[in-house]
């Protein structure tokens, strides 16, 4: 059983809907959910002005309609589940610490900023700054898992401190830039300057990548821990060929302009 929200009035002006998270709606009546406050451009409005609400008292929220202009879905959630049938706007799961978000379409920029726990799954593509620190902040996500089955744009995992970002397709430039710790796994192509400024943490690429000159080749080996991660990704529906699980990886250490304890693992063909 779930609470069903159906977008009945699409809008060109972005809608900020921090209120759509299980923590908030679980305790409310149907009418209470409809009267939750949203921000439409620079105006305050009611959730019911845009969404039809059905059901009450559940920890699962099912969202239908094209919500690609709806921001902050699942912001601050600590429990429960949000299932989004279509596309979703920016700042999905901002600050979430628990629960699950599943997007069946694409997600815009800033998936999971300030996240510290929980799980976000994007079945399609995602924009820039997946699991990244907001501009001006020194630390990105502190935990949790972000699974993007498609492609992502630039700066995935910027300044990430803990957690896992898995990308089934390709990633743009500056993947894992300023990484503090945690893991970013890219199953497709990885853009330029991966790991620039990273201190610790792991970036994995199944495809060749040009390393920055401040990274040092260490060895080609079988990273056992990666087998564990890749099996974990298979369990989450990623199509991981056995050759990546059993294969050898080139280990590059860096970034030497920083702590130099990070690693980029590139599948050795």
């Amino acid at each position, binding site marked *: 059983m779930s609470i069903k929200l159906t977008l009945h009035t699409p809008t060109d002006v972005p809608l900020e809907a921090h209120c759509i998270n299980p923590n908030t709606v679980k305790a409310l009546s149907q009418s209470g959910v409809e009267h939750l406050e949203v921000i439409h451009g620079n105006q305050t409005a009611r959730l019911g002005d845009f969404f039809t609400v059905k059901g009450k008292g559940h920890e699962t929220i099912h969202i239908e309609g094209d919500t690609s202009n709806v921001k902050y879905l699942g912001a601050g959630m600590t429990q429960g589940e949000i299932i989004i049938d279509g596309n979703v706007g920016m700042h999905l799961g901002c600050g979430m610490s628990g629960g699950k978000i599943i997007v069946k379409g694409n997600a815009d920029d800033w998936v999971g900023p300030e996240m510290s726990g929980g799980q976000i799954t994007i079945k399609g593509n995602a924009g820039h700054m997946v699991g990244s620190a907001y501009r001006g902040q020194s630390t990105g996500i502190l935990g949790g898992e972000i699974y993007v089955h498609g492609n992502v744009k630039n700066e995935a995992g910027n300044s990430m401190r803990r957690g896992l970002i898995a990308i089934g397709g390709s990633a743009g430039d500056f993947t894992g830039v300023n990484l503090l710790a945690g893991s970013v796994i890219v199953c497709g192509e990885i853009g330029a300057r991966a790991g620039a400024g990273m201190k610790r943490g792991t970036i994995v690429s199944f495809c060749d990548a040009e390393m920055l000159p401040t990274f040092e080749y260490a060895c080609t080996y079988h990273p056992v821990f990666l087998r*564990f991660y890749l099996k974990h990704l298979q369990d989450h529906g990623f199509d991981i060929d056995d050759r990546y699980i059993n294969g050898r990886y080139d280990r590059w250490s860096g970034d030497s302009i920083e702590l130099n304890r990070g690693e980029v693992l590139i599948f050795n063909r």
Partner: protein
Amino acid sequence: MKINKTEIVDTFAEAFKMWGSRVIITADTLGWARAAAQSMTGFATSVIRCKCEAAVECEIAREDTPDGRPGISVLLFTMAKDNMSARLVDRIGQCVMTCPTTACYNGLSSEETVPVGGRLRYFGDGYQISKKVGDRKLWRIPVMEGEFVVDDSFGVQPAVGGGNLLIYGTNRSTTLRASLAAADAMKEISGVFLPFPQGVVRSGSKVGSKYKGLIASTNDEYCPTLRGFAPKTQIPDGIEAVYEIVIDGLDEDSVAEAMRRGMHTAAEKGAAIISAGNYGGDLGKYHFHLNQILKG
């Protein structure tokens, strides 16, 4: 009570509360995983002198292990929960981490855990790396072939130690054959292990000794060579050998099931009498009555 011609003595095995852990060892080949497991479970027959009891539980197919490689499951029990971390750290550190290609994972889901990788990580001398996936935290410790991967903590749970059967026979070879067959049948039960060599003990012990400082000594009541003069001999006429099978398990039901299978198999293979050891019932928390087990 009898199973065919085998007499089942109306008595019970007295067993104790212990703490159990399950260690999953994986490696590039089953051979290396087995080598590590055999090393780790060496000198772990009895808490009396070995500080823990341990043995291989079973082989695990590669599709069922955390990293997709062939694995071996090891059960390791201690008398106190507080001792478990030290025993695991010692044995995993010396016997598994040292063994080529291996990794080591917790195999027990339990609310109570003890640190293992979190202590072994110091071997990495600052170069170790932690990784967290879901609720699972791993340590990667650099070693000369690459990395040793070990779970940060291992689950522990209350367990049963010291279930036992005494197998009597009319000669040594028949008795040993029956005991070994019984032990092999008992090892098939999940969550159970037999800590002694091949599962069979010839030097059963009693509590205490005439010599000061010894906490255990030979169980003279069951030594056939002493039948002529031992004051409380338990060796009937016609019996020439007795073997003990000690059973440890993660819960009472699995120990009882192992004992049931063991009794049936031993009887089938020619055991004359099957009994069990106890201390009058005052020491151990668990009492496994042979007749009740057979009646189901």
